[in-house]
């Protein structure tokens, strides 16, 4: 399931009185549970590990001079650099948190990102 669909599903849930739904398909299972705190954010619980941005800034898949070869479905190793966030003169690396497969890429080259924003989702091996 892609992030856009997840987002639509979450928004739809908030308009109902459902508290929890589980979605299973051939690829896996996702549970969505709304908590009752004032913020009404859906808590995503799934097997996918999100990779959050280490900083606010501009996301780059590759360092200057190198080329990017990352695609969804690619195999990644723990600590492998998936990209970097440019902030001021710094380049903050975005390492993979575990060995696995790059299930979802939810960021684009050169786009501004916030601290903590999910950039990738990894299916652990």
């Amino acid at each position, binding site marked *: 399931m892609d992030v856009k669909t997840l987002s639509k599903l979450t928004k739809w849930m908030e308009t109902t009185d459902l508290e929890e739904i589980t979605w299973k398909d051939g690829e896996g299972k996702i549970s969505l549970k709304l908590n009752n705190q*004032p*913020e009404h954010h859906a808590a995503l619980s799934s097997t996918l590990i999100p990779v959050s941005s280490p*900083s*606010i*800034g501009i996301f780059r898949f590759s360092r200057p001079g190198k080329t990017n070869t990352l695609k969804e479905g690619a195999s990644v190793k723990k600590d492998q650099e998936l990209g970097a966030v440019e902030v*001021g003169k710094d380049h903050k690396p975005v390492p993979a948190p575990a060995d696995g497969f790059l299930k979802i890429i939810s960021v684009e080259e050169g786009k501004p990102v916030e*601290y903590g924003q999910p950039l990738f989702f990894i299916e652990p091996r």
Partner: protein
Amino acid sequence: MFKKVLIANRGEIAVRVIRTLKEMGVQSAAVYSEADRSCLHVRMADEAVCIGPAMARESYLNIAAVISAAKLTGAEAVHPGYGFLAENAGFSEACAKNGMVFIGPSPKSIRLLGHKTAARKMAVKAGIPITPGTMDCVSKNCGPEAEKIGYPIMIKAAAGGGGKGIRIVREKSQLVHELQMAQSEAGAAFGNDEVYLEKYIETPRHIEVQFVRDSHGSTAAFPERDCSIQRRHQKLLEESPSPAVNQALRKKLEEAGLSLAEAAGYVGVGTVEFLLDKDGNFYFMEVNTRLQVEHPVTEFITGADLVREQLLAAAGEKISFANGRSVAFTGHAIEHRVNAEDFTRNFAPSVGRVEEWLLPGGPGVRVDTHVYQGYSLPIYYDSMLAKLIIWGRDRDLAVARSARALDEFRVSGIKTTLDAHRLIVENENFRAGRTDTGFMERLLAPADSADRLVGVQAGRPS
């Protein structure tokens, strides 16, 4: 005027700035740390971006992250609030370098007036009396300089403010230890451990003059604020005008403030702080090159909107007070700082979730706050919850109104300084306008103070 302004701050001051931006039709962009996702300023702003984890050093004090947020949101100007980067010349420069207007004075003004020893030199040049002390920062071998001034002395942070990095030394033997403490506190609070020495004037009154100046040469000075009620050099209650200042003295203080602003070529709002001794002599202490926490008391008696004046000055427009140098006022205003501190445990910070939050209202009552019912206090930032500001047609009426409003103010789930304020407004000396910087120590000192606390709490059912 700007189309969009980023507020590089949080909490009540961010809320304050957003309110004026809305009134002026300017878009607001907020920044927040991970710990501040549910902070009120995030909800009030037109847009908000997360700039870092909870620690201030990695979020609100992170210049690269704040500049990045301004670029991301397309803000043309940045309002730094107070504290954090408000008096950081490096941040002011970074804004300029990145094509944004810093809503505050130029880096040059900040360096000139924000650095305490540089400001003292300027004051001397402008013919303003200064507190006896060193004209430069001191090293650890400052014994001879301290002797020359004469004990008791104060060690003060040169890059300081907000009551941090200040130590009083009464005897030669304490100097080395207190110097180390002051330097390390200053280093931690301001990233700069430079300190200088001043004569410690026993229990003076702390009087400050708000001024505003635009790039067209118009200057205006507001009636003085009296901020003598402090605890450990942190202000707790402020009022305007000062019960100790008559019109003649007011004129002198305002003139001193304005001549300093003009000498520094200052554009924006700022405050000149003075000490007033028991004989009515005043001494220049320092300049604050930012909007201050207690600005609402000035707004209440003059009808000014100081944030608006900041925006006008920063946008190169004329301030609203171009016609007069001394702003007219009416009545009396008092501000009570309500902090999340346990008054009965030496003002230890209180944490938790705000359960009951019932604000006072009615004539002459203003509350500036970011707190709401159900809000969980983050532990990473200052303990300010709210500012309760009161206006009355004269001081007696204002004090009576303060007592009434403090009684209406109900908070549960966390401890606050409300009880301390209730004690203050009942105090005979406070009511008579007899206050100085030793007031809080005397109020809290008496042997039967525990009984008095119980008396206060028993008399006020929550």
